[in-house]
């Protein structure tokens, strides 16, 4: 009995000690980790889309409520004007969700670039959506409105051969982005005005 008690006490104490330690550490590092994640997971795509911007888009980000959730927007300043924003959207690919950064110029509603952030597509097949710049390049200059579809389905997107599923997923993500953009445009414009 005494032994049993000791076992329970030791285990509980150890668990609480460990839990406490970790919780404390977690609080300490939470912000840093979030920054790091943005920087290294989404950062490359964002910076690629906003190449040449005068500011640091990751530092200059803000959030807008989109229904239930909050969405982050990353601002790029070109020629002194903060007219370009980048935000994330998702579509379903072959291996799971595909995260896609879409950059749009608020002035003319044109896409300035897209870039895949996270995906679990097959290396060498679907993953070419992330690595092959030609695929992303085709979206540049299109207007961020309406539906995006692959050519097989009668749309405008050239699919990556052998990875039509991935390509469709990305088309869906852009379509989603268009929806979000259309619905949030007023608040966006508002926020951007406050930007110097």
């Amino acid at each position, binding site marked *: 009995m005494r032994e049993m008690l000791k076992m329970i006490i*030791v285990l509980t104490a*150890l668990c609480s000690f*460990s839990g406490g330690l970790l919780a404390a550490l977690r609080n300490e590092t939470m912000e840093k980790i979030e920054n790091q994640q943005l920087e290294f997971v989404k950062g490359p795509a964002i910076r690629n889309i906003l190449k040449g911007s005068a500011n640091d888009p990751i530092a200059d980000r803000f959030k807008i409520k989109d229904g239930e959730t909050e969405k982050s927007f990353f601002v790029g300043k070109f020629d002194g004007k903060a007219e370009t924003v980048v935000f994330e959207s998702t579509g379903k690919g072959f291996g799971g969700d595909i995260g896609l950064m879409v950059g749009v110029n608020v002035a003319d509603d044109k896409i300035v670039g897209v870039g895949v952030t996270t995906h679990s597509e097959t290396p060498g097949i679907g993953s070419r959506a992330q690595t092959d710049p030609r695929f992303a390049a085709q979206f540049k200059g299109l207007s961020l409105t309406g539906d995006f579809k692959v050519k097989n389905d009668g749309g405008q997107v050239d699919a990556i051969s052998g990875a039509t599923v991935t390509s469709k997923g990305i088309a869906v993500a852009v379509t989603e982005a268009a929806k979000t953009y259309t619905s949030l445009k007023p608040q966006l414009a508002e926020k951007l005005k406050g930007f110097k």
Partner: protein
Amino acid sequence: MAKSVTQEFTKGLWAEIPPFRLVLGLCPVLAVTKSVENAIGMGVAVIFVLVGSNVLVSMLRKIIPSKVRIACFIIVVATFVTVVELLMQAYTYPLFLKLGIFIPLIVVNCILLGRAEAFAYKNGIISSFADGLGLGIGFTMSLTALAAIREVFGSGTFYGNQVFGPDFQPFNFMVEAPGAFVCLGLMLCVMNSIGKK
């Protein structure tokens, strides 16, 4: 039987150098030795966890009842692993991404539980510290050596720096999965032949 602290330390560097002498914990060895950078990162993480858990287990060895000792070891090791995970995410995020699930998998690395069970639970704090540090450094050395071979031939670089001329076409096999196994196997062979003498 009783060894000096120095002996406890140095045994991990040669006589019992993991993973060659204690053939355990092979997965990370195979997975993270594509490049020297990954290897050193992994090595440092392991040193941290190994030393930390060895010391903590040794400190608590009088209190921990033997029936639940394995559970306690797991908690201790997992705690340190989580600490490493959080710290790496906060400060060396790209490395964290490269090492992937092999950081959380340090938890099940046979070396750690093995050391807690075989050494720290039976020895004093100083010896346990020396033991953990020695084995950890030994492990890092092995990883780095293997990674150096694989990176130099397989990618033509060392710690990211070009080694050969621009015309060199790297021997990709070395950094692919099959090459990892074959290189480790052959390295083990070399260690065996040296050890014999």
